[in-house]
């Protein structure tokens, strides 16, 4: 166990190192550095030089790399040129919006997928199975921004909910928070449901065909326990890994939904950074999200290892 965790941490660090080098190189070596982008082509040589000095662009490459990593380690991701603010503090402000959004929608899609997928696999070829397969295809193909628009139309004209309120932190008004977050969470959950449901269904079908399943049935084990404890326990490691992956991806992948529903989250910050070509901010967010993705995958891998200690040896044999 300890050895496994250490190995996973080491490989996570390697990924972090690679991504940080890559982002550094891409942003540092592209023609037209961050200062030019920020100032614009029309900017005077003087402002440019001042900005270059401010960003440390006038120093030699090894020095810049050293600065960059010193910054990363001390969580100093630089200063945003658009907001004229520390990148790390900008990210911190936005996390409070995005993290609950990601957690809620992942929890909803994961639990829906577990229940629907298990039952669909149990009654394979039945009505529910057909519905699930349709959901898998539709949910995987529907563009999140179109679904958002459809839901907006539905809720405003059909249920005549007067507009979707502006974002209100839950500390101010729980009711306002729920109204603001309800639709985005649904959109995000639907977006994740497709692959998750498909995976749960197929691993459950494998489980239900195993000898131990037949034996447990003949022991006279109740149906609920049979499906949701025996079969699901065996089938869950794949979906759990996927769940971690999706959760991590959501922390940055909410950009579109956040912008449609005017939520001041991390994704929206990233969009603004992209639109304003604030490369320091883009770089900071990319590195931050990579770190989150890596961390999340690490946590879920260890979780899977706890649930199913035989999983990694088996996967290693299969790969």
């Amino acid at each position, binding site marked *: 166990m300890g050895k496994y965790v250490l190995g996973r941490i080491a490989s996570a660090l390697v990924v972090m190192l690679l991504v940080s080098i890559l982002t550094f190189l891409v942003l540092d070596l592209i023609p037209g550095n961050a200062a030019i982008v920020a100032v614009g082509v029309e900017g005077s040589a003087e402002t440019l030089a001042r900005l270059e000095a401010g960003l440390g662009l006038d120093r030699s490459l090894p020095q810049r790399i050293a600065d960059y990593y010193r910054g990363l380690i001390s969580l100093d991701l630089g200063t945003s040129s658009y907001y004229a603010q520390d990148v790390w503090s900008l990210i911190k402000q936005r996390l409070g919006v995005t993290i609950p959004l990601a957690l809620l929608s992942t929890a909803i899609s994961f639990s829906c997928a577990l229940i629907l997928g298990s039952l669909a696999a149990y009654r394979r070829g039945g009505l529910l199975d057909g519905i699930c397969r349709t959901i898998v295809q539709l949910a995987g193909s529907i563009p999140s921004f179109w679904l958002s628009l459809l839901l907006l139309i539905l809720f405003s004209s059909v249920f005549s909910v007067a507009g979707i309120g502006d974002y209100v932190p839950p500390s101010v008004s729980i009711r306002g928070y729920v109204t603001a977050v309800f639709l985005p969470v649904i959109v995000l959950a639907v977006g994740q449901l497709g692959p998750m449901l498909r995976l749960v269904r197929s691993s459950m079908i494998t489980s239900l065909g195993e000898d131990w399943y037949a034996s447990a049935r003949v022991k006279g084990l109740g149906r609920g326990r049979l499906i949701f404890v025996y079969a699901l326990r065996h089938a869950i490691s794949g979906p759990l890994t996927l769940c971690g992956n999706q959760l991590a991806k959501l922390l940055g992948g909410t950009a579109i939904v956040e912008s449609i529903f005017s939520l001041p989250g991390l994704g929206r910050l990233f969009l603004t950074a992209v639109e304003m070509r604030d490369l320091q901010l883009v770089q900071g967010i990319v590195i931050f999200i990579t770190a989150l*993705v890596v961390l999340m995958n690490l946590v879920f891998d260890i979780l899977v290892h706890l649930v199913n200690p035989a999983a990694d040896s088996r996967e290693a044999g299969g790969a």
Partner: protein
Amino acid sequence: MKRITPSLAAGITLVCIVLIPALVSLFCMPYDPQAMDLHSRFAAPSAQHLLGCDHFGRDLLSRLMEASRLALASGLFSVFLGALGGIILGIAAALGPKWLETMLMRLADALMAFPTILTALALAAILGRGTAPSIIAICVAMIPTFSRLTYSMVCEGRASLYVRAARSYGAGPLRIAFCHLLPSLMGRLVTQLTSSLGSAVLLESSLSFLGLGIQPPSSSLGMMLSEARAYVLTHPYQALPPGLVLLVMVLGFNLLGDGLNDLIFDRRRAVHG
């Protein structure tokens, strides 16, 4: 035994539904998709404008035809480029030296774990907005999938007998890759290409929804939806046709990919069993 599964049939039908109007738009369209007619702003579907008009009074059907052609073209182009890059990198990782293998595959892992839309957005931030940058961004986002697929298939294939036989009579690594491995991998690549087309179209429309992809006055599905968003409460109808076309397109490619997968998987099982 080749069998047309329901998903394959549905996929082919849906792809044709968008492909045929897109091809027709090359030769003729009911109206000029950029011609504005302020008298028919937000016109409802009628005999003159089959799908109605948008907020500038442009004919929706014509715009949709143009938009789906552009979506298909940019999707095809970026998937093709991405697949090419991915295949080359995958083969390089599988047959090249150990350090290259570790580096490329770790990198692919990292990119795979990273949200595709963010990769594309980050690239758009560097390259600027427009059609070409968005195609490059999508293409880069597609690379890891293909390099991983190619890598794992080459590794599987490398251990197989016929490759060992080829090596024993002195075939070089390139010859092995192109003459022996690639043909047997075509099936899975074609499947992946089809499914990737779906995600590429989706990605392109996301970028143009955010205003980073295809630029006006050309029409694109994402842009049309983003324009419709402004009128979503007053003219909700505007959001329906572009979204539906997009859904049909993506769903079509996904189903087609699944169907092809079933077909190839069936054939392989028949060979083994």
